[in-house]
């Protein structure tokens, strides 16, 4: 199946290809990634604080 339904104006493939998720999608499998993003964000913010001299 070749995709021909690109969302016009999308600037990336997430916007172009995303579809509503069915109930069977392995949603829970993403929580580790989400948690990692949280940790990464927190670390970047902490490092940013250090660079800015706020602590």
């Amino acid at each position, binding site marked *: 199946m070749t995709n021909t339904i690109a969302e016009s104006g999308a600037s*990336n*493939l*997430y916007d172009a*290809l995303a579809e509503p*998720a069915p109930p069977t999608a392995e949603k829970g499998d993403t929580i*580790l990634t*989400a948690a990692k993003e949280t*940790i990464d964000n927190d670390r970047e913010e902490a490092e940013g604080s250090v660079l800015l001299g706020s602590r």
Partner: protein
Amino acid sequence: LVRADAPPIIVGSAEDEHAVAVAAELRSLSIEPIFVDAAVLESTPYSLSHEELTLRLPGGAVRARLDSSSRGWIRRLAPPHWRRAVVSGSRDAAIRGAWMSLVTAIAGADEVRWLTPLGRLFLCENKVRQNLAAERLGIATPDSAVVSNREYIPSRLGDMLVVKPLGSAAFTDTAGDEQVVWTHEMTRQSPLLDKLGGAPFLVQKRVRAKRHLRVVTVERRSWACALDATDLPLDWRRHDDAHMAFVATSEPSVEGEAVRLAEELGIGYSSQDWIVSSSGAYFLDLNPAGQWLFLPNAVASEVTKAIALWLAA
């Protein structure tokens, strides 16, 4: 067997069906695991001091030792959607980060023997790292590349390409609805490839599958289940029925390679996707914290038991 003062640690929710299944198996061995995740910590009086975590549950206090006497399995750091809608840099993000720091202080305890250590879980979610590990071992994978511009897609990938997200394939949109990005097939001429620069996606050579394999590994054991690719879309997960159509199979070569790959990556559990084409078997990707209970019961129960026995050892 397990010391009474060092119960197995399950990082996950007591409502997660996979964690529940492993806990039931442990209880059949008269072992009561301790559940802990961000949501448990948020809702339970607790103390963490030196190497001891105490949760003061309604039925009484339970304790876990974060030292070499304990074994643990990291299923999920937090339940799906736990404090998810938080603006980066906000007060709520700081609070969420504090809870996450606490749960990772537990799940990241080096002294505990984890089925898969937290750091390996994070690193090995990465499809590029997985492919490189497979290549080091001489395991066949579809030729692939990650590129910012379509002109950098290597010609050796051919004209029919497979494109899949390098990051999470699922997200919640601004309206709060769950979205998913399936693996897509497209030609090299597709205008969609103009958007590669907006977010990294893995571009692969198209390999036609005759069968899909889901291979699960626990330490040095592995199980393979097969799904006939006939009449299925490229990404079988699009078809609800396909989840329940896997049948247990025997693929000794693939099962052995799957164990080798998991060992190379340093992960005690993996849920791997392979395809069998007319030219042989190819490793596609793996999830170091993927699901297995949708597989036929004969396999699912063996996987559950293997994790429980490892925790009980």
